[in-house]
């Protein structure tokens, strides 16, 4: 068995085991219920913790195939997408939805491989403005506005 495959077979059961143990530790600090005969607020977390520990053993025995994590360009695209989405949600309130969305789309499209200047210059702005107008004005979904100079978009 290749080392990557072996790692792939062992890591999920170990993570499941660690999660189960962690849940049991946290559940130990949950206050007991006040009603008589109530199994209490810690009941469900305890059941899940024990189940996860049992399932980790089952997973070790039951070695099913898995895809494994991506490598190379695929991995870079996924990690960068997560980073860009994190930055997107961190900027959505400070700079507003239209500006944050346009910047996110610009970076994301470039990441995916779009290199045509005309597309990168127009599509993010059009999509961002279009979705903002649709949700904010047509559907009354409150999205944070972008202030450019004295103009509130």
């Amino acid at each position, binding site marked *: 068995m290749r080392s990557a495959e072996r790692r792939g077979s062992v890591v*999920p059961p170990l993570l*499941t085991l660690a999660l189960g143990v962690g*849940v049991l530790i946290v*559940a130990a600090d*949950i206050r007991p*219920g*006040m009603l*008589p*005969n*109530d*199994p*209490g*607020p*810690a*009941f*469900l*977390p305890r*059941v*899940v913790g024990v*189940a996860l520990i049992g*399932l980790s053993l089952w*997973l070790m025995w*039951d070695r*099913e*195939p*898995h*895809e*494994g*994590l*991506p490598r190379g360009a*695929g991995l870079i*695209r*996924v990690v960068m*997408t*997560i980073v860009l*989405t*994190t930055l*997107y*949600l*961190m900027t*959505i*309130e400070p700079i507003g*939805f239209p500006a944050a*969305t346009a910047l*996110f*789309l610009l970076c*994301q*499209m470039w990441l*995916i*491989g*779009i290199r045509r200047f005309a597309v990168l210059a127009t*599509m993010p702005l059009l*999509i961002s403005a279009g*979705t903002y107008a649709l*949700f904010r004005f047509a*559907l*009354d*979904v*409150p*999205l944070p506005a972008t202030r450019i100079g004295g103009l509130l978009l």
Partner: protein
Amino acid sequence: MTGWIEGLLALQDWLVILMVPLGVLLGVAIGAIPGLSATVGMALFLPFTFSLDPLTGLVLLLGIYNGACYAGAIPAVLVRTPGTPSSAATTLDGYPMAQQGRAGEALTISLVASVAGGILGTLLLAFFAPLLADYALSFGTPEYFAIAMLALTIIASIGGGSIAKGFVSAAIGLLIAAIGFDPIAGFPRLSFGDAQLSGGIQLIPLLVGIFGLAEALTQIERMIASRHERRRIGTFSMGRNWLRRLAPTTAGASTIGFATGMLPGVGGDIGGYMAYNEAKRFSKTPETFGEGEPRGVAAAEAANNASNMGSLVPTFALGIPGNTQAAVLLGALLIAGIQPGPGLFNAAPDLVYGSFVAMTLAYFCLLVIGLAGIRLWIRVIQIPAAYLWPLVIVFCVIGSYAVRTNVFDVMVTLAAGVLGYLLTKGRYPVAPLLIAAIVGPIAEENYRRSMILHDGSFVWLLQPLTAGILLLAVASLVFAVLRHRKALAAANEPPRPN
């Protein structure tokens, strides 16, 4: 009867009626794109419903559900990639038909069978759901606990692949559901003193992340400039004597699909495969199945549409989602402040019966829209992925932000998206996670109430109905383990020499 009258009266609102074709149109466009399943589409369009009244929003989502379910057959036939999981069985004969230059015929058959299966399924839903709801009015906490356990065992074990992985996914869902104030004592748990976490994890950001964002990450990882091969479509006619050839198969498959769909957690894909197998078994020419047999396409499509309607029976009547799409509908109702379950039929008959009538209308709309735009839908699968998936992420962010205009919910979506992506890579099914997150609190609350009401005794587990349902749960688990072992044995068997 008064419920039906109230439902019809509710449909006098032009906005509700407008949502029927709009939902179907959106659903067809969504279902035709591989990767954008009905669940993803419904999750993405959920924020559209926030500003609408409950029936209008529900009708929009049901239209998307019905439209996407049919349109999943388009890429299944043309490129052997089911647009939605429920169209998986359609590839078995649809793709061979396309290879023979009969793609047009396969697409028309899939449309007509979808509509027939959907309408029959809606009629059966309208008949069975009120009966079950009436019966369920007498249910107490033990019965609800048992039903929730049945849903959990079926969901975790029937998703295909590893049963253990299904249960791990369900356990994570239960854990997520446990975050926040507990349902009986109101004490915070698993929140680590964080005020946002104490409020619990909202369902919508969770499902938008698990389905929408996780799928976007998966597609972005795989993104390569692919071109679909152009295939000769052929005629869209279903050939001579089509009604006589296809009607019995369609009727039988719809019934099987509906019955399968009523079991919590059994999706249209399983209904489709079961009906396909039965159509093949009852056929005088079983050898033609898999080689481009129109009855195979009709069976798979009729069954998966009827199965979707079947999945709405426990959703409306018990408040327990029949499948993941039903879980999204349940989430939409809960956000609108409506508690699904047996009481819903008396509390909001306009909503329940109005949605039954709207679903029937949606299938007639689907027939018209499907036939009129069949050449256009074929082109939808060629939308450039480079524009589509970034836009899906934007919709995920809007959808989760709009729930409470709160960035914390968007963070939940991001975390759920990464979790869903990792689970998918490890071949852990994600559907059990979502359904466990919904059903888990029902199971916990009813278990604890039963224990309190029966002075800490387990005697309530022996009540006939409760014990019967729990036995069913055990049986479903045993059945799944045996089936899994059989599949493993078949996979490990060495190939026979020719």
